[in-house]
Every structure is written in C-alpha cells, then in structure tokens.
C-alpha cells in the first residue's frame, strides 16, 4: 500500500483503477477547492472537477514525468477554470449573496470554537472577498487564488499558468490593488 507517487502513476497508466483513485485522491480536494473559490458555485466546481479528472484519466498515459504530477494536474485545473463556461441555467447564482442559504459562504462551519459573532464576521468578510474577486480578470483571480488559498510560490504559479514570473507578479500586484480598493472600509 505504500506506493510512491511515481509507482502509482505507472500503475494507473497501465489501467489500474485503484491506483488511479489513490493517485488523484492525493490532490483532488485541492482541485475542488480551487474550482470552488474560482467559480464561487458548488455545481460549477463539481463540473470542473469532473472535467479535470476525465481529462487526467484520458491523458495520463501520455504523462512523461517531465514535471511534477501535481503541477501537471494544476495546469489542467487552472486551464479548465479559466476557460469554463458556466451552464446557462445557473447564471443567477453567479454573485454570492450573504442571504443565500445555499451558498458555501453561509455554511462556514462552526466546528471550531467560534462564537456566532466571529462566524458572522468571518462569513461577511468572505462574502466581501468573493464579491471583490469577481472584479478581477481570470488570470489575476487565478494567480491570487493559487497564492493566497493554495500557498504556491510565485515560481510555481508561473509554471502552472505557463507564464513568466514577472507576469505573475504583475497579476498578483494588480489583483491585490483591486481587492484593497474594494475592501477598504470593510475591516
């Protein structure tokens, strides 16, 4: 059961579905979380998740170990997010509303020892951040999410998004500026 990642990839490439699952379950939560942050919509996030891993499944045999598997996976994920076309009938869910019971924002868990006031404050802030994120360009938003939510280094983001580091720095700088403008007075 203690297979290395490369062993898992090789097995999965030979059609071993258990290995494929074991492999993707190392990263799929991050993929889903990123898609969820990017779209701010659980159904869209699941769609992206599905498309990402179907693509991974179909293309894994062509993976040649030239990059980390996770980098390859996140390349696919960021691409899918940026090019994702929201399903028509979900259009009215684009903006996240604080009153919307179904939005992930309103479901912030109380599993930690948080007082209701703290939960509300955090929820409100997340609503504001999500709204503010909507104002970013796809590339700015993706850079920001990969940095602030996933903790990637700028160099890694550049590899994932196929850009120069300088470009990512610019995206991040502009993203933060826009967000600050939107969020001033929210603290």
């Amino acid at each position, binding site marked *: 059961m203690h297979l290395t990642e490369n062993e898992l990839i090789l097995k999965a490439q030979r059609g071993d579905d258990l290995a494929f699952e074991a492999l993707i379950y190392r990263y799929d939560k991050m993929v889903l979380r990123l898609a969820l942050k990017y779209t701010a919509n659980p159904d869209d996030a699941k769609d992206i998740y*599905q498309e990402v891993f179907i693509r991974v499944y179909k293309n894994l045999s062509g993976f040649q170990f030239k990059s980390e598997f996770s980098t390859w996976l996140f390349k696919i994920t960021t691409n899918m997010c940026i090019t994702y076309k929201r399903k028509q009938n979900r259009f009215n869910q684009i903006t996240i509303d604080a009153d919307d019971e179904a939005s992930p924002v309103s479901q912030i868990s109380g599993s930690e020892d948080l007082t209701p006031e703290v939960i509300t404050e955090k929820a409100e802030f997340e609503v504001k951040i999500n709204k503010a994120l909507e104002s970013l360009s796809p590339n700015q938003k993706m850079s920001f999410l990969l940095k602030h939510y996933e903790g990637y280094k700028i160099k890694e983001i550049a590899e994932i998004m196929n850009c120069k580091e300088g470009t990512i720095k610019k995206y991040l700088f502009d993203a933060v500026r826009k967000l600050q403008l939107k969020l*001033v007075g929210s603290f």
Partner: protein
Amino acid sequence: MQHEKYEELIQYYFYNEIDEADKKLLEQHLISCPQCKTHFELFKKIFNSINENENNEFEDKLLFEARAELRGYLKAQKNKTSIIKVLTQAFSSFMVKPIGIAFGGAVVLLAGLFTGYLIFNEPAVNYSKEGLNFADYSKIQNINFLDADPDDGEIEFTYESVKPGRIKGNINDSRVREILTYAILNEKNPGTRLNSINVINASSQHKNDDELKNALISVAKYDNNPGVRREAIKSFNELSVDKEIKDALIYVLLNDTSAGIRIEAINSLMETSKKGIKLDESDLTTLKDKIQLDQNNYVRYQLRNIIKEY
C-alpha cells in the same frame, strides 16, 4: 525607491518570498512612511483573513459528491469496453447464418436469464430493421458479430431465432459464468443482478475466477443499489480472498453512504483477516482516521474492535 515598489515588497514579505536586503529596506521604510504602513496593515488583514477562512465540512461533502460522480462516469466508460469483451467471449462459439440486423448496446440481451439457466423459448421472433421489442431479447440466439470494435461505442451483430426449445447452461460452464458475470455488472434490474450473484456463488468452480472477482469488486464499490452492494460484499467470503478484495472492502468502508454496508465491510474485513489477509500499517492508520470521521456509532465501535485485534 517609490512607494509603489514598497507596496509590491509588502506582498513578497507576507508571501515569504523576499530577499534579506529588500526586507531590511522595507522595514526601514515602514518606520518613516505612514502611507506604506497603512498598506502594510491592510494587506496583512487580507492575507491573514484568507488563511483563516477554512470551510472544511462543506468542502468534504462536496468532495464526496464529486468523487461519486466521477466514479460513475469512469465506470460507465469502463463498461462500454467490458461488455464487448465478455459478450464476444461468451458468444463466439455460436456461429450461424447471419441475418443482417444492426443493433447497438447489447445490454438487455440477458433479460431472459435466471437461476443459472439460459432460456431461449418460443419461435418466431419479430425482427425488423428498426430494432427489437424488449420481449424479443429472450428469444435471441446465434449471435454473430459483424463489428465487435468498441471504439465508437457501438457494435453490430446478427442473430437468428430458433424452433421451440431451451438451452440449458450449467453454472459451472465457463461460458455461462461469463454471461452471469456480465449480468452482475450490467443487468438493469437490480433483482436480476442480485440473483446472478447468488447463482454464481452456487458454482463450485468460481473461486479463482479473476473476471468474476473484479466484477464483484466493482459492484461492491459502485453499484447504485445497496442490496446488490451488500450481496457482493458477502460473496467475497466465498472467493479466495486476496489483497485486492481487502482493499475493496476498505474502500467500501471509507466511501459507502450506507452505515449497514460499512458494517458489512468491517465484518468481511474480519473474515479476510482470519483467512490470512492481514491489514497492514497503512490500513490501520486509515481505519483509525475513519474512527474520527464516521457518523455512525456502531461503525466506530466495530472499527475499534477490529483495530484492537492487531
């Protein structure tokens, strides 16, 4: 250096991607520049708030759904191929004069199949170029493939109907087992899937049948009917257990939404353990984690029991 440059450095400072020289410059500048100090505080708030904003419970639920959907999709893809393989093997021995009828998706062929016998009764099949009535499927025999290439998702074969009669297949006949294996995976009616599992368990020659084992593993993990999943898990005890079965049971234990089936999986794990397929360190860690996560008291209780034995 201008304020804007420091504004950028503030970001790298929090990202921990700043070199020492820049860090010193920034720190000195912040002492004397209220404007950049304000930026610093503002960015700090954004940075820290996001890091605190974890929403695990909701994400876990969503992840569970997403995994189930993906599994369903991949399973459907797999079956497209396995249907053809099994059918080709099962029917390649019947070869009769073809009547040109094309027909895609051979899934319902086995509608007439139960209790270990293949029954082809009554003559006079009404066949047409348009397709077949459901009732006609049980009267088909003499299948001859014209196109058994599954790449385009469609196959083509010819068939012929016969005089009244009945073809009996012994359950120990490998061909019948293959058809039953096929039925376990693909028969639309859950009752028939369940019967097929029961019937095949009555066969004395199935214990080392890999094709069957894989089918049962697949059913235990993915069948959408809880009764069928449970039957598949029980049937593992009839097989020569191995690591693949053990792994499948752990998978069920971790992923099945029905507490009853999770308990069935634990019971089976105890059986496999008695038969010499022990849990390894990594399994035990997984099970210990599961004790923290599972919602069901009895599942947690049984998990503790099984761990105690190691």
